[in-house]
C-alpha cells in the first residue's frame, strides 16, 4: 500500500497540479451543485427528474465514442461498440421518455 502511494507521488509532475486533483476538485464541486439544485425540485417532478438525470448519466457515451473510435479493430473496439449501443439507448430513450412524461405536466 505504501509502495503504491509512493508510486502515485512520484507520478505527480513537479510543476502544475496533478490531473487527479483537478478531477477531484471538479467532482466535489459538481456534487455540491447537484445537491443544491436537486433539493429544490418538487416531488411532483421526481420521476421525470430520475429519467432525465438517467439520460444525463448516459454521458458515458462520450467515453464509448472515444473507446470505439480509436484505430485498432480489436477487443477494445468491440467493447466500445457495445458501450456505444447501450449508452445511446440510455441517452435517447431517457431524454425522449422524459419529454413524453413532461408533456403531461404542461396543462
Amino acid at each position, binding site marked *: 500500500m505504501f509502495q503504491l502511494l509512493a508510486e502515485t507521488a512520484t507520478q505527480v509532475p513537479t510543476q502544475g497540479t496533478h490531473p487527479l486533483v483537478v478531477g477531484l476538485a471538479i467532482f466535489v464541486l459538481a456534487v455540491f451543485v447537484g445537491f443544491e439544485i436537486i433539493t429544490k425540485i418538487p*416531488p411532483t417532478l421526481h420521476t421525470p427528474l430520475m429519467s432525465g438525470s438517467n439520460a444525463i448519466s448516459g*454521458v458515458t457515451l462520450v467515453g464509448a465514442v472515444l473507446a470505439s473510435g480509436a484505430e485498432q479493430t480489436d477487443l477494445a473496439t468491440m467493447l466500445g461498440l457495445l458501450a456505444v449501443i447501450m449508452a445511446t439507448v440510455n441517452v435517447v430513450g431517457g431524454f425522449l421518455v422524459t419529454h413524453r412524461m413532461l408533456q403531461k405536466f404542461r396543462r
Partner: protein
Amino acid sequence: MNQNLIDLAYLAAAVFFILGLKGMTKPKTAVRGNLFGAIGMLIAVLVTLFAQGVVGYGVILTGVVIGSAIGVYIALNVKMEQMPEMVALLNGLGGAASFLVAGAEFWRASSAQGVDAIAATGLSGLIGAVTLSGSLIAFAKLAEFKFMKKVKPLPSQQVINACLALFILLLLFTLVARPAQFTYWFLVLSSFALGAFLTISIGGADMPVVIALLNSYSGLAAAATGFVLNNSVLIIAGSLVGASGLILTKVMCDAMNRSLPAVLFGTLGPTADGPSADEVYKSVKSTSADEVAMLLEVATRVVIVPGYGMAVAQAQHAVRDLTNLLKSKGIEVEFGIHPVAGRMPGHMNVLLAEADIPYDLLKEMDEINSTMEQTDVCLVIGANDTVNPDARTNPSSPIAGMPIINADKARTCIVIKRSLSPGFAGIPNPLFANQNSLMLFADGKQAVADIITALKEG
C-alpha cells in the same frame, strides 16, 4: 481539434446539464430543462467525434443507429405504469456502458495508465457491474416476472454478501498493484454477482429506494469512468446524477421511516405482536356507492388519497371524471400524495398527470395534512400503509414513526378497497375500523364509476 477547444465545449455541455436540472424545479420550465440536457449531450458527443484519435466512424455510427432505434422504440411504447421498470433498465445500461468503456480503455493502454487511472478503472468496473445486475433484478421484480417468485435469497445471504464485498475490495487492490486483464474482468464478474445478491433480498415495498440508489450508482459509474479518461464532462455529469440519486434515496427512506442500511440489508423494524386483524377489524362498517354519493353531495371539501392500488385497478381516468364532476358542483377537491405512493419517487404524480388531473390539485403530504381537519370527506383509493394511523399512535408498530397522510382526521373517511388484506407492511390498519371510517369493498375503477353514476342520478 485543439484539446483546449474540446475542453471548453465540454464545459458548455456541463453548463447545459446544470441548466437542464435547474429547469426541473418547476413543471412549467421542465420541458425546456430536459431539452437543455439533450442539447448538452449533443454538444458533448459531437465535439468528441472531432477529438484526436477518433477514426473509426463506421463503428460509432453503427452503434448510435442501433442504440437510437432501440431507445426511441422503448421510449415511445412504455406505459406510464411501467416507468419504474424503464428507469431501472436504463440505469443498468448506463452502468454497463461505463464498465465497458473502462474495460476497453484498460485493454488499450494498460501499461501506459497511471495508478490513479487504474484505481478509477477498478471502481468503474465495480460500480458499473453492481448497477447492471442490481438494475436487471429490480427490473425483473418490478415487471413481476413469474420466475422472480422462485428466486429467494440464499440462507445466510448477508454473510455471503459481506465475504463477496471483501473479496472484491481485495481484487481492487490487486488490480492496482498488478494491473492485469483477468483481474479486471474477474472484478466485474464478482461485482455483477454482488449487485444481484444485494437486490434479490430487498422487499417489494423498498423498490422506490432501490431504483433511486441505482440511479445514483449509474451516475457514479460514469464519474469513475471520467477519472479513467480524465474527461471533465463525464466527471461533472456523473457527479450531478450521483448527487441527485442520493437525495431521492434519502427522500424515499425518510418517507418510509427506514434507514438506508436497513433497506440494503433487509432488516425489518421492531417486530411487534400487535393485535390480530380480526381484533382490529371488529367494528368495520361497509358502505355502498349510493351512500358515498350522498356524503359527497353535501361536502364542501374532498381530499382523494391515491395509492398504487389505484394504478393497478387503472382507476385514474375514472378518478379524473369524479374530480371534474365534484368540481362542477362547486366542491373543492384536492389530492394528498404520499412520497412513496407508487413504485418510484413521484410515480403517482405522473400517473395522475397522464389522466389529465391538473398538477396544482396534487398536494404534498405536509400540505394536505394541515387541511385534513377541515376536510369533509377523505376518499382513500388503493392506499393502505401510507394512511395507517398506527404509525403515529402505536410506538411498537413496525411502521411506527413513518410519516402518513392523516386520513383519519377528516370528518368522514371512505376507503375503497377490494378486501381487508394488508399492504406491504403486512399489518392491519386501524383506520378501516375507525368510528368515522366507511369501507367500500370493490374494484377501484368500478367503485368510482358507480359513485359517478349515483351522483349523476341523485
